[in-house]
């Protein structure tokens, strides 16, 4: 009887008392319950396959933990298993992966706009004239023509007032006005058909609705825009245009200068040289940089108006390049290489494909004793000329 009692005590000890530290039990059970652990303690001993061996393995685990802790572990492990099964295999965002990083498009290099300097000088002059002129009232000046600056920025000046903000405040009218302006820049004195403009301003809707909306917006012109801007829009039946006869438009002036003076290669008159220098200095940069924002607000870029803008941007850049080359040719004819070089460098920066300009620049470098630069330029253009010949061999 005593032996039986001792054996019973031993069995109770083996089955009830945990044989390993259980001070972290709560933490382990919590982690297992949440699916972060598979087993609360160690996995069952691997004794082989089959019911009996698995049972023996579990029995050893039971011996280690004691029955109460063992059952608690089984409960937590079952809950954790269910929790893991409910989890997706991976956690990833539904969004598509980020695209490859690319260096930004280089900011266009532009010469400092002459308009700033003129304005500044005019301000200085008016300040200087202030005290002496205060005694006698200045004679009333006529407001002058509407000035449209579209290269490098957008500025509409009339009678000393900047009307740009008032135009930009009405996005659709701004779109219509700038579209007509661009059309006038691309094809002077030509008109736009009402339907074409309606399609551009209100893309993706029924043509009748487009025309109706355009009609409505055109009738708003006088209310929403300053009169000097509204009056520029001419409606002739189904044709619309922007009247720029009495306006100072920088693109038109650039085109006129280039048309008059960019031809030829020899010497220019002093007046022509000055006119070209002024046109070059007035070139403030890209045509209508504000357009993308206006288009995004109005049509979200769905129309083809952007193509027209890009065409005028290219045109303005071409005209500017022509004038740079022409002025460089003039200095070259005068054997004034120091004046020629910066102009040609600017042309090559904009148009690296101009081999003819590279040749003149190389000669100008040699004239001024810049042999290393001349050789570098020659090497660059020689290798660029050789490369296209090698390509077929590589293919």
């Amino acid at each position: 009887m005593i032996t039986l009692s001792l054996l019973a005590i031993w069995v109770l000890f083996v089955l009830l008392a945990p044989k390993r530290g259980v001070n972290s039990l709560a933490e382990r059970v919590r982690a297992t319950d949440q699916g972060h652990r598979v087993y609360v303690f160690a996995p069952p001993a691997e004794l082989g396959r089959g019911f009996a061996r698995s049972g023996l393995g579990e029995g050893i685990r039971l011996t280690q933990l004691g029955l109460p802790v063992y059952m608690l572990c089984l409960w937590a492990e079952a809950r954790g298993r269910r929790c893991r099964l409910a989890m997706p295999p991976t956690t990833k965002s539904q969004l598509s992966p980020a695209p490859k990083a690319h260096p930004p498009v280089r900011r266009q290099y532009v010469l400092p706009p002459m308009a700033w300097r003129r304005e500044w000088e005019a301000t200085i002059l008016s300040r200087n004239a202030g005290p002496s002129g205060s005694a006698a009232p200045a004679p009333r000046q006529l407001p002058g023509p509407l000035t449209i600056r579209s290269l490098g920025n957008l500025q509409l000046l009339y009678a000393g007032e900047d009307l740009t903000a008032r135009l930009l405040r009405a996005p659709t009218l701004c779109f219509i006005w700038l579209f007509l302006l661009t059309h006038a820049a691309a094809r002077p004195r030509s008109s736009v058909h009402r339907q074409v403009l309606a399609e551009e301003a209100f893309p993706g809707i029924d043509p009748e609705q487009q025309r109706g909306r355009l009609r409505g917006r055109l009738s708003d012109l006088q209310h929403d825009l300053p009169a000097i801007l509204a009056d520029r829009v001419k409606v002739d039946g189904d044709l619309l245009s922007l009247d720029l006869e009495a306006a100072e438009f920088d693109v038109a002036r650039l085109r006129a200068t280039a048309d008059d003076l960019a031809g030829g290669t020899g010497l220019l008159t002093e007046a022509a040289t000055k006119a070209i220098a002024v046109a070059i200095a007035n070139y403030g940069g890209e045509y209508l940089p504000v357009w993308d924002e206006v288009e995004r607000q109005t049509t979200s870029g769905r129309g083809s108006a952007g193509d027209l803008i890009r065409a005028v941007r290219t045109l303005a850049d071409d005209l500017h390049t022509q004038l740079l080359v022409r002025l460089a040719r003039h200095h070259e004819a005068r054997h004034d290489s120091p004046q020629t070089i910066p102009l040609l460098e600017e042309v090559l920066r904009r148009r690296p494909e101009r081999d003819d300009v590279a040749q003149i620049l190389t000669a100008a470098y040699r004239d001024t004793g810049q042999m290393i630069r001349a050789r570098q330029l020659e090497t660059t253009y020689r290798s660029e000329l050789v490369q296209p010949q090698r390509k077929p061999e590589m293919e």
Partner: protein
Amino acid sequence: MRPYRGSIAASAATLAVTVLLSIAFWRLGLNGHSLAPALAAGGLPLGLAAGILLVVAAATVAIHISVTAPSPSVSAEEPLLAAPRVPAIRRNAPFIVVLGVRPKSGASTLACGLALVLATQGRIAKEPDRRLRPLCLLRSDDVPSGVALDSSALEAYFRAQSTAVDDDVVDLAGRHPEGIEFLAMGREKPSASQLRQLLPVLRDHYDAIIMDIPADDRWLATTCVELADVVFLMWVPGSQDGTLQRWVDRLWGLGLEGKTVLTVGRRRAGDRPFSKGASQFELEIPEDAAIRDRIDNDMAWAVANSSAAGRQLRQAARRLLPDLLPQGADG
């Protein structure tokens, strides 16, 4: 069987004691001892209780093994991990340095895993409709498969551009399908001044920059840890040659303990945890079959819910970069 040796030995020892006591009672005639009548009187109820318990235990084991298949993924006891303690970084494009104290300490694995977590789960509050684009600067050998990368491109770039680093350096990075970009440092690792030039450019183009630096390049490592927003000082238990201690002394000496996370890789159940207060910030990455058995530096473990190491890393990443990793992204 190893974890059970203690309990089997204890059970066997008590059985031996029981047998010896029985023999003693029987042979030495201890029937007159006061303990004996008590034991004899309690024999029946004790035996009954033991029998009932035996039946319950056997039934529990039988039901359990017939219902539940053993988990093949876990063959050893999982370590009990402390919750990650890491600093919270709230700046744009953080620069995270993973400094492997010794080779093969898992630094590049951690760097790639962190990059994948950011690329797949991260987002910026002001731009919620796009994923993050992290950059990983690694040694050439550690770049995962599937990334087209010229391992000597950055080296050649630095040789050509001796004075300045330009935006075009991002063209050298190889892209992983998940949106992570990789740059290999090459054999000649960037100098400290080149790194100082490179970092602002990378910050312009990436949402996070993660760099795995070998500790053997002491000057580069020192520059990196100074520039870093957080430093994971990575080591694996078992390497007791004093390198970790030297790096701890160096970082603490530089006053960088406030951004250094003492990181243990491949932590097993039997390894001793850090002593309390050893470091302000600590992270334990457990030994994980998903990492051990991966092929070609695959990073999927980092986002797999079945991976304990991945879960721990994601938890640490969420605490580290609360602005880039919204709460509740992990399941």
